[in-house]
């Protein structure tokens, strides 16, 4: 694969949801190992993730992941991308841990018994073999988050998209998950409204009203973002709150 087509490429991509233009002619070529997407509530971060993952189609422009269209070429997209949604309860589809873990593998063409066996091996490797038959409702929120991560990792995607991966978790759990993320060999795209959590990324993109407001190394983007947020926070603008 040439350098021209590898990575995540958006060319003048726009997304319209329920009549409003949520992403407005975004062009990006993402190849770095650790990418952060910063922005306020409603700035279009989750929508950017969804269009990259091929969950919505752009109304204009194109999206290519390693050369293929994630919306139409689903098989290719599955091995290219995994997503960790913000809320594990929006991601978990099955009543028990083993079914949840096996599902993605079966989707990739593995037979169910083999998929279950692989899920078991993965859990054992993580020291959590006792989870295998647990109902997902018996896991705590942090544990459910972790389960979702395992399910994504099992599918061995080359890139993982994380939507506010640490929101709502307590500090020790945040620390542990952050360490786990840091150790992953995959490319990570992390969405957040908290600049601190992308301070060590290779590249940070600041979204504002569906457009790219800034794009560069964290040392450059984060101070600008923080200053802007502090400025807005001081005002008591009606429209925003």
């Amino acid at each position, binding site marked *: 694969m040439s350098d021209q087509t590898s990575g995540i490429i958006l060319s003048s991509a726009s997304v319209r949801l329920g009549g409003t233009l949520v992403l407005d002619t975004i062009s990006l070529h993402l190849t770095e190992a650790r990418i952060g997407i910063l922005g306020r509530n409603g700035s279009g971060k989750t929508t950017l993730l*969804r269009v990259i*993952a091929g*969950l919505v189609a752009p109304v204009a422009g194109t999206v290519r992941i390693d050369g293929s269209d994630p919306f139409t070429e*689903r098989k290719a997209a*599955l091995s290219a991308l*995994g*997503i960790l*949604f913000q809320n594990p*309860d*929006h*991601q*978990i*589809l*099955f*009543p028990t841990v083993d*079914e949840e873990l096996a*599902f*993605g593998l079966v*989707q*990739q063409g593995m037979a169910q018994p083999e998929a279950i066996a692989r899920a078991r091996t993965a859990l054992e490797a993580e020291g959590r073999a006792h989870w295998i038959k647990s*109902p*997902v*409702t018996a896991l705590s929120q942090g544990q459910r988050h972790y389960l979702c991560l395992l*399910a994504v990792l099992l*599918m061995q995607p080359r890139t993982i998209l994380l939507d506010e991966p640490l929101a709502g978790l307590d500090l020790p759990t945040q620390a542990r998950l952050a360490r786990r993320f840091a150790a992953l060999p995959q490319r990570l795209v992390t969405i957040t409204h908290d600049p601190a959590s992308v301070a060590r990324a290779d590249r940070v993109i600041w979204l504002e009203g569906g457009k790219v407001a800034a794009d560069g190394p964290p040392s450059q983007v984060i101070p600008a973002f923080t200053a802007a947020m502090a400025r807005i926070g001081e005002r008591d603008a009606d429209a925003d709150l």
Partner: protein
Amino acid sequence: MLTLTSEVRIWAHRVPAAVKLALLAVTTTGLFAMSTPAPLAAALLATAALYATGGQRFALSGLRLLRPLWPFIGVVALWHLWTGDLTGGAAIVLRMVCAVAMANFVTMTTQLSDMLAVFQWLARPFQVFGMSPRGLALAVALTIRFIPVMLDRMTQISESWSARSPRRPRWRVLVPATLAALDDADRAAEALRARGGAG
């Protein structure tokens, strides 16, 4: 989730689910062909014997499953005492109790996954309507997964109501609850697509 499958394992657990279901269909049809109390009583005795082969604990939990039938037996008895048609009444009660007990026996001795497999097989003709067996399996898993999620949501919504009102919310929780179900459905669809879809 809790199922009605008995935790006391007996010989009938080893009989294939399809065989049990086929036998059940035949015997139930047979029951409805009988109209006098004597053969029906014999059938009920046979059913009781079937339960007895599972031991005391099994038989007792089978008896518990018949409890919802009591009011029905009461009303039939009263009705037929009043009309004087006692044999007719006895036949109705015997047939009902026997049919329900036999069906429960199959339920109690069949694993959920085996039962589902038979249903998936039975659902194959529906494929022409675009319902794949795989889709059915997925839908079943999703429903079981979301029942507790939805219950939680309902509790939260009623608490939000109680936090602002001394009265009970009653049916009013249904609006936000249905809305939550619709939103959950959209998000689950997306999560499904993110991992390969329903195809």
